[in-house]
């Protein structure tokens, strides 16, 4: 499908944005000198802080708006608070946050269970779509997993019998 001629000029819209006066082709910024005023701009009204918000140590002040969903809590929250002691260029910041995310997954399952909800992990992973569109691979995975599990159980039982 290589374009060896000028056929490409018939593609709808070809060349419509080549006018150098039409736009800055290089949208680094429409520089207006405001950078030199630093943070001295007329601020929007400030959203009241009603929950714990973790703030980057690189921020001079709380931005005017922010999300208030899911304030830090539990063990993951403790780790997130610790992570925010580091600046954004430190591994201590990001790796602690990733670890907190993984702990938070376990907390999420415990939260479900404590609210009498058993998470349907297979449904959450979209296995229904696999059954519909990817059945062969799904069945193969199930057969392989069943075979491996059966082999391990069989081997462990055999080992028990020998040691007994």
């Amino acid at each position, binding site marked *: 499908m290589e374009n060896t001629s000028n056929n490409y000029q018939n*593609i709808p819209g*070809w060349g419509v944005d080549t006018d150098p006066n039409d736009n800055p082709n290089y949208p680094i910024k429409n*520089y207006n000198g*405001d950078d030199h005023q630093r943070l001295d701009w007329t601020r929007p009204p400030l959203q009241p802080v009603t929950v714990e918000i973790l703030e980057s140590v690189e*921020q001079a002040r709380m931005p005017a708006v922010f999300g208030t969903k899911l304030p830090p809590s539990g063990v993951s929250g403790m780790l997130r608070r610790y992570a925010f002691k580091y600046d954004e260029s430190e*591994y201590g910041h990001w790796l602690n946050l990733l670890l907190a995310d993984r702990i938070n*997954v376990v907390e999420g399952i415990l939260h479900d269970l404590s609210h009498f909800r058993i998470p349907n992990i297979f449904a959450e992973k979209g296995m229904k779509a696999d059954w519909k569109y990817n059945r062969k691979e799904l069945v193969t995975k199930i057969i392989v997993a069943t075979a491996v599990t059966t082999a391990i159980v069989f081997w462990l039982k055999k080992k028990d019998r020998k040691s007994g």
Partner: protein
Amino acid sequence: MLAMNYRGPFRVRAQQKPLPEIQHPEDVIVKVDRACICGSDLHIYHGLVPDTRVGTTFGHEFIGEVVEKGADVNKLNIGDRILVPFNISCGRCAFCKQGLYSNCHESNPEATAAGGIFGYSHTCGGFDGGQAEYARVPYGEVGPMVIPPDIHPDDAVLLTDVFPTGYQAAEMGGIKKGDTVVVFGAGPIGIMAARCAWFFGAARVIVIDRIEYRLEFARNFSHCEAYNFESLEDPVLFIKKTTGYFGADVCIDAVGCEAAGSALQWITGRVLMMQAGSATALHWAINSVKKGGIVSIVGVYGPTDNLVPIGNVVNKGITIRADQCSVKRLLPKLIHHIREGYIEPRQIISHHIPLKEVSDAYHIFSAKLDNCIKTVLIP
């Protein structure tokens, strides 16, 4: 209300949540009409973006109807149908005033490197997203725009991110008439970037990916050449050869942190998480572009480090341009392009799926089942 609910890597479900409330005088509450799943949503779905808390509602590409507004919202009215750019921007900080709406300094307490984004982890401000029946939209008068009556809702929802981001990818490439442009990635953004490269006068557009049905879609929608890198011995060498051993004028990385194609990158970036994802596409882009060429990055990477051949950037005198798209800046022009018939973005939508089936929708998109290109959720 029903909302998408993140439970951990590869696990999401639809669940009832409290309705959002006005928390700031410039907020509006939107009754969501439709919301896309973005390719970058897959990075948080896969657990790669730090500070993605269990219970978060994703979704930064959505349109809907204004049902409630704060005291300082004057230009929007109840009942207006608006499209909501994925950037949360104040319009008043030094960055917004210079058109860098994606770099707003008044919308994200958790990080200075990124502006606020709907439903994209607490690293991007901790806002709930639009994959829900209702969403809170801060700075309602700044970013959002009333949808013109002649714009199809499916085109409108693609104007919130994918079309502008693809366009900006091409724009940042500084494409000149006659240029050869190589786009790495045939996802929705890559397909759109390839299509938009023609607007800037490209003479040749090449897309590289490994998913055959997407390459076929790119050939048709983007009018480009498209190659499967698994069938090329070495994609960098292929590009060198096909450009007369010169290199492409412009390379675009439209893949980001989940690129296939290099075992080393995959193991260190995805399995061991020793770097912020797999940077194979960026690696190839740097090595495929000509000396003095431009590499445009719109693929999303994590906030730590990546293995890229920075020495070659120096030695080849490459310019790298990158940013999250400043959607608001581009909307008038892109609406014009739709009206003129240059492009019909909604052609890339392959699936409309009810929000209550969000688990399946994510898996279909993530596992590339049923020839999925772009998924729209309908609350």
